[in-house]
């Protein structure tokens, strides 16, 4: 079997021993069959056990291994090494404080997600069976509920970099619209009221980095546009 050399340049920072972050080169020989980036990083971690990153499902569903790969955010487990220019440059998700190496502190991201009340609100008494929802109404949730909270979008969004405490960010707003769009939710007015300020939604400048990087092919910009329309309709 033919082998190939794979080369990497990886961001390193351990607060216990490093004064500042640095880039470290790694390389290894492996069969030239296709490999996922996560497998490659796991391989490197056997060489250097101190290399630190998050991972769980390894199939693009859990959202643990978001990172910046050759300048673009993505999931390591869903990225084919063969499609990447070498050396492959890997950095932590931008815009978040770095805990260690590729592990970032996502507190602010989760806070914004929690701020939109990401749960169904319906104050009517639930029936003994399911609430009915037509296939057409259910289809309105497609492209929204699939979000895996990997933060690739919010971490690529300049508006979120500047105002992480005031702008909800693409992921949080995608979830906000997922509940606004749900025919079973009846808290629309309260939800819109909570978003009706100059920052929460309107800091989106339609740069669309979020759409470009989403590993699930979701479209937060479109969801934000729908929320804007709902807010403007309210204001009339």
């Amino acid at each position, binding site marked *: 079997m033919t082998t190939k050399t794979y080369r990497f340049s990886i961001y390193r920072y*351990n*607060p*216990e*021993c490093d004064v500042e972050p640095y880039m470290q080169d790694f390389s290894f020989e492996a069969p030239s*069959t*296709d490999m996922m980036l996560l497998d490659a990083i796991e391989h490197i*971690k*056997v060489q250097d*056990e*101190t290399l*630190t*990153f*998050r*991972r*769980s*499902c*390894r*199939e*693009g*569903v*859990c*959202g*643990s291994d978001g990172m910046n790969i050759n300048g673009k955010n993505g999931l390591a487990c*869903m990225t084919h090494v063969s499609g990447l220019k070498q050396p492959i440059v890997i950095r932590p998700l931008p815009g978040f404080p770095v*805990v*260690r*190496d590729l*592990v970032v502190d*996502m507190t602010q991201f*989760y806070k914004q997600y*929690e701020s939109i*009340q*990401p*749960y*169904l609100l*319906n104050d009517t008494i*639930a029936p*003994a*069976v*399911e*609430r*009915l*929802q*037509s*296939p057409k109404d*259910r289809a309105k*949730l497609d492209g929204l*509920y*699939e979000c*895996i*909270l990997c933060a690739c979008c919010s971490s690529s969004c300049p508006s979120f970099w500047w105002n992480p405490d005031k702008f909800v960010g693409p992921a949080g707003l995608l979830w906000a619209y997922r*509940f606004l769009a*749900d025919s*079973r*939710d009846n808290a629309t007015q309260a939800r819109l009221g909570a978003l009706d300020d100059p920052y929460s939604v309107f800091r989106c400048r339609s740069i669309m980095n979020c759409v470009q990087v989403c590993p699930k092919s979701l479209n937060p910009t479109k969801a934000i546009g729908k929320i804007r329309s709902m807010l403007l309709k309210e204001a009339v």
Partner: protein
Amino acid sequence: MAINTYEFDAIIVGGGGAGMRASLQLANSGLKTAVISKVFPTRSHTVCAQGGITVALGNMHPDDWRFHMYDTVKGSDYIGDQDCIEYMCQQAPAAVYELEHMGLPFSRTASGHIYQRPFGGQSVNFGGDQAARTAAAADRTGHALLHTLYQKNLQAKTHFFTEWYALDLIKSTEGGIAGLMAMCIETGEIAHFKSRATILATGGAGRIYESTTNAFINTGDGVGMVIRAGFPVQDMEMWQFHPTGIAGVGVLVTEGCRGEGGYLVNKNGERFMERYAPHVKDLACRDVVARSIAIEIREGRGVKANGVDAVLLKIDQLGADVINSRLPGIRELAITFAHVDPIKDPIPVVPTCHYMMGGIPTTMHGQALTRINDQDHIIPGLYAVGECACVSVHGANRLGGNSLTDLIVFGRAAGIHVENALKKGDLPQQTVDESQIDQALVRVNRWNNNKDGESFHTIRDELKKIMQSDFGVFRDGQYMQPGLDKLDALYARLQNAKINDHSEVFNTTRIEALELDNLMAVARATALSAITRTETRGAHSREDFPDHDDVNWIKHTLYFGTEGKGSIDFRPVNRQPLTVEPFQPKARVY
């Protein structure tokens, strides 16, 4: 180092479906509830469940929970406890409607009801026609379920200790469990979590095998903790091999593909399940389909894919519309990991370790059990739910779609039981002996201090190879006994193994090493239990004992592990349901 103590009314270890269903019950009842999870909760393995949750809602045809019960007892190959199976099937509709009310985005029928698809081993009228009983949110049901539960826990103000890793249980002087020790992954801080109720919801351990659908995090932490505390685990020989993992990668391809009309073919294009299960063909139980594939491959009718032998799963005949609406996630996974678009080409698949039917024995309320002098004893203060538990509703073979049912019904049941017991004063505060706290730190200290031994990677790789070659789909005593001997030798080496990262901040290598202790405990429990059961039943298929032995083996195996060797005991299977007539063992023909 000073050790902080955190005190809660109830502590749940694990933020998957079972743990968060239990925590939601408790937090909503006003109890001070904490979830300790080694990953952010929505990264738990429940997120990977695809096809759905099996429940007799009757949305596609008239249905009855008793039919669901019959199928589950038969699927379990008659070593599931019939009282617990009755409870699960009877409670499931209410538990699923609750999920819908919470906001879970189920797919819908034209009339607006929850959509249900056919899955393997399902029938109406006690073995009659194929049923469609698995409620689905496209092929992302686990994702939808896990996010919904996390969201409702946020609303209920459950306290999450995210990225904290459970080390060991704290035994009380009364012989029960008074909480546990856990480590903050981000800082290395170790704390004592004190509680009158500790609920283990730590999931499976499929990472003992080389080829698995399981996430990296499925390392049997709860099972390891219970074994080290001197309590038993049950039916650990029973591992489900899912018929359709993507060849060479292991990523799961849902049974829902076959439920929607997909089927398996061999290298000759033959739809071979017609030979093995003439009645239901590709929708036979998972143990049956996995064995059939293994035989096809062994007899030379497989195809080569990704460097391994496989068969092909064909779904192109369903058409692009059905695939895009009902199986969109599968299409994405197949394109990414198998380089085939299933709208045009078949997916190469192979039986892959998927689910641990065994686990911590419990009552139907989730109370963990031990066995003393042939009697069950409830372990005060300890509960287990979900895949780490063995209630037992899955027996020797779990039906597809029943794992989510198990999580929801028994997560809720344990929550209700703890809530009532705390209110009635039935869960007293137990006394903690300080030496127990030191004991729980022995493992961390070992990994911190070993600096000269061999690499833990070597041991982990060898463990997986042994399990894969000697304890797979087909088993034989002549290979299993040497396999166990190798595991015992490996266990001894593990005590002197080392890691090369000794920092405190986010040291994932140390976590992996601590997880390896648990994988080792699970592997040894599996090996000894598998050697002990000298018959073929469900997923446990022995070439040296190819027949069922209903006279001697309708019983649970119990494994106790100690530092040196494990030992085996047995528990009777409860064949007496709560209200209906018992289902008697008979040959499982599909």
